[in-house]
């Protein structure tokens, strides 16, 4: 505030900036609202899916426990470690309101059990089966949760920008513009007065009004 020049050029510049700031503020506000709408529906789905996946994983864990009670620890681990399965996912990106969000597509071809049935318990088959059943949901959960995380971050950032514009930048610019225009008006008035004074002086010089008035009074 202290260092601004009260000039007409500065005033024009500031007015331009204010228009841009107002437009930016409106756009960011719209972006925030759009993000928020998408976010709320996504996060609801996220919670639902998470609860479902957690439930399923706990079930799978219990089945593995059962399998372990039927076989020795070593046997279970050996049977599973030798797995020829390879879970692969294909990552693509989606753009929601300038937020890049990963999408995963599962490319797992399940080839059946990785171990012979002779030395393993039936419980293990069940356990593996239940875990394989969770897999698609698990992958979806990852993508969804990452999307929610990124959007929450973006919303926070956008909200901060909106607030900064609304409560700091725009009021400051308005104050500066007011200051400059008042200063300019003030300058204009003072030069007007100066001109009137000069005009009076010049008229006095030319016509000697005051002397004539005195003569008239004496006469």
């Amino acid at each position, binding site marked *: 505030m202290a260092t601004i020049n009260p000039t007409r050029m500065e005033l024009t510049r500031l007015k331009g900036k204010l228009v841009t700031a107002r437009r930016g503020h409106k756009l960011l506000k719209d972006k925030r609202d759009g993000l928020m709408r998408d976010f709320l529906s996504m996060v609801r789905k*996220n919670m639902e899916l998470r609860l479902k996946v957690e439930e399923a994983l706990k079930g799978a864990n219990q089945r593995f426990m059962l399998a372990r009670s039927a076989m020795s620890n070593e046997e279970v681990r050996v049977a*599973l470690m030798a797995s020829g*399965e390879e*879970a692969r996912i*294909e990552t693509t990106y989606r753009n929601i309101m300038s937020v890049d969000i*990963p999408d995963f597509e599962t490319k797992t071809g399940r080839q059946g059990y990785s171990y012979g049935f002779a030395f393993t318990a039936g419980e293990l088959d069940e356990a593996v089966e239940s875990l394989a059943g969770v897999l698609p949901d698990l992958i979806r959960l990852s993508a969804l949760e990452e999307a929610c*995380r990124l959007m*929450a971050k973006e919303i926070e950032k956008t909200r901060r920008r909106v607030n900064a514009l609304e409560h700091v930048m725009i009021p400051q610019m308005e104050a500066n513009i007011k200051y400059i225009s008042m200063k300019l008006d003030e300058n204009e008035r003072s030069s007007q007065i100066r001109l009137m004074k000069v005009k009076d002086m010049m008229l006095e010089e030319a016509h000697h009004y005051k002397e004539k008035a005195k003569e008239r009074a004496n006469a």
Partner: protein
Amino acid sequence: MDKIAVVGDIDSIYGFASIGFDTYPVESETETLSTVRKIWQDYAVIYVTEAYFGVLSEDIDKKDAPLPVITPIPGVRGNTGEGVASVKRFVEQAVGSDILFG
């Protein structure tokens, strides 16, 4: 094609080998941190059991590349409810307070 990893205590994660995830057994939080940092580049998704997920929050916050995605999952023991809590935190961060899940 991207791979998937699981990090956590051995009892919680060995099953995932059967569906083709790479398993990384760890026994402490520091080990979790170093393991995850080591495999950071190699996987698209890294699942971490809730018991050890907490130490990673800083790294996840700092991450600016989209991958890897790090997701908490419940383990056999030591569940902290971190998965659900993190979803609640998203709402809190975005809205200002948790209006959805109280």
